[in-house]
């Protein structure tokens, strides 16, 4: 059996031959069970089934898997993102790169569950609307633009697992910190108008969204993700079927050429690479619709506790939240400077933010920020504030948003098994030199 280092050298010389040699050498008499069951299966998985779903990678892909590094992953059209995972691609935006009112495409986060489709061209793309409707539809993107009013809205769109890294005991999944949020300007049509054209039956209860991405395992029978929303959310005039992002084609990793924007709800309800909206007479039970996916316990639970599946509810509106986007954490004020203007954004699922307060003394006192109204419902809102520091030293700045229902961001979020809905106050560090 080759040592790992030798294995890599083999792969460098000839990946195809190395695959054979390495897997072949696993057939030692002492590891009979391993060989028959798993050695062969692994060869099949990595070499056979592996090739289609790693189609963008060269043959002999084991060294990449072994490399275990996301430092050198380059995603065309994206800059400054922190890559959490390269298969599937998941990348978040550092807070200081979210300073714009409209999040640039290059800084918009990526949350993939499966393998994106190869072909993301608008030409020939079709959307089917069927299920509990009187007239099933099959539309091109041109049809959508011709038949329905085209609107552009700024919409806040946050992953349900944003902030997962802040839970202890750690929750499983991609360890998002604060950067799985974006607020782009999306152009498309209202899902309501399309569903009205199809004609909802009285039995219509829930949508089921289907996309063109494929399962990581390469198994065509498996679906990476298919989520939906209750009819009232689908019929909200801010829920869009969109084909443009900031006036450009949608980035391929953000769902080109067509996707849903279901603002204020877990990002996964905004299906990417959209091919079908199926109207159902039951709560959708597609992949990642059932507990514990995108679900939290009905009741508060002790950190680390096991929670029965029957005790989970599907997440709907996301909680009130804010970010400090200027300055960047770690800033040092120049000597003689004791005042700082800071700014950021605040948002709150289906609700509106009514106040943002900031503190520079670990929450002992608070200063009310200036808060702008959203340019349209479901956009995040700009806030700005000025703080003065009494002495030199190390300061933390905390930001806390309050929504129209009086809900505030907590300091510590309620623990839940999958690490969703962490809306704890954002903190940055500032050094005052003198």
């Amino acid at each position, binding site marked *: 059996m080759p040592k790992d280092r030798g294995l890599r050298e083999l792969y460098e010389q000839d990946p195809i031959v190395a695959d054979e040699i390495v897997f072949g050498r696993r057939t030692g008499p002492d590891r009979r069970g391993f060989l028959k069951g798993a050695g062969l299966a*692994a060869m099949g998985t990595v070499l056979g089934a592996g090739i289609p779903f790693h189609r963008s990678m060269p043959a002999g892909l084991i*060294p990449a898997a072994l*490399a275990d*590094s996301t430092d050198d992953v380059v995603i065309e059209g994206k800059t400054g993102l*922190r890559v*959490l995972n*390269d*298969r599937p691609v998941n990348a978040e935006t550092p807070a200081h790169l979210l300073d714009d009112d409209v999040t640039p495409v290059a800084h918009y986060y990526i949350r993939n569950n499966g393998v994106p489709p190869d072909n993301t061209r608008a030409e020939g793309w079709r959307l089917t609307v069927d299920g509990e409707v009187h007239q099933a539809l099959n539309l091109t993107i041109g049809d959508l633009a011709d038949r329905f009013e085209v609107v552009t809205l700024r919409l806040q769109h946050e992953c349900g697992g944003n902030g997962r890294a802040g839970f202890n005991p750690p929750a499983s999944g991609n360890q998002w*910190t604060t950067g799985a949020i974006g607020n782009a300007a999306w152009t498309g049509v209202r899902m309501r108008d399309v569903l009205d054209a199809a004609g909802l039956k009285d039995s219509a209860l829930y949508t089921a969204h289907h996309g063109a991405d494929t399962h990581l395992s390469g198994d065509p029978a498996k679906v990476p993700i298919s989520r939906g929303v209750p009819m009232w959310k689908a019929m909200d005039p801010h829920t869009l079927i969109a084909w443009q992002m900031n006036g450009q084609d949608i980035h391929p990793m953000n769902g080109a050429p067509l996707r849903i924007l279901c603002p204020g709800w877990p990002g996964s309800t905004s299906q990417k690479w959209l091919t079908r909206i199926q109207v159902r007479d039951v709560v959708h039970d597609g992949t990642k619709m059932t507990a514990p996916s995108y679900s939290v316990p009905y009741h508060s639970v002790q950190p680390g506790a096991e929670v029965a599946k029957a005790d989970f509810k599907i997440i709907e509106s996301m909680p009130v939240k804010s970010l400090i986007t200027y300055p960047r954490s770690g800033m040092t004020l120049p000597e003689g400077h004791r005042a700082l203007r800071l700014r950021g954004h605040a948002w709150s699922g289906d609700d509106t933010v009514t106040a943002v307060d900031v503190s520079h003394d670990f929450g002992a006192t608070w200063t009310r920020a200036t808060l702008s109204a959203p340019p349209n419902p479901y956009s995040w809102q700009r806030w700005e504030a000025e703080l003065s520091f009494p002495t030199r030293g190390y300061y933390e700045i905390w930001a806390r948003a309050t929504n129209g229902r009086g809900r505030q961001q907590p300091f510590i979020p309620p623990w839940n098994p999958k690490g969703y809905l962490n809306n704890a106050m954002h903190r940055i560090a500032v050094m005052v030199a003198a």
Partner: protein
Amino acid sequence: MACAAILLLPRVTAAQDLPGDGEAKWIVEAWCGACHSLAMVTQQGMSRRRWDETLVWMVEKQGMQELPDDTRETVLDYLAEHFGEDHRPGGAAGPPPSMGIGVQPLFPPR
């Protein structure tokens, strides 16, 4: 931007290994790494029981090949030892200097 262009440039010569050695490490690299990045493993901090549940979930829901019976315990021991609850996942790119969530100090004492 007609196609989803992601460029993977594997650092074959300077690969960052999973910790430890032995058969379990090799199996984790081959089995888990066959479908998803090993960053998905190194980001986690879970008890042996939750790793066990995760392997069951991977087989039942995600199409992973069953581990051979005689290696399952070794693999679970390995995962629990290196990525147990006391492993504070910092993400594949390493812990951010000041992610600003949770109760840890933003600038740890030096």
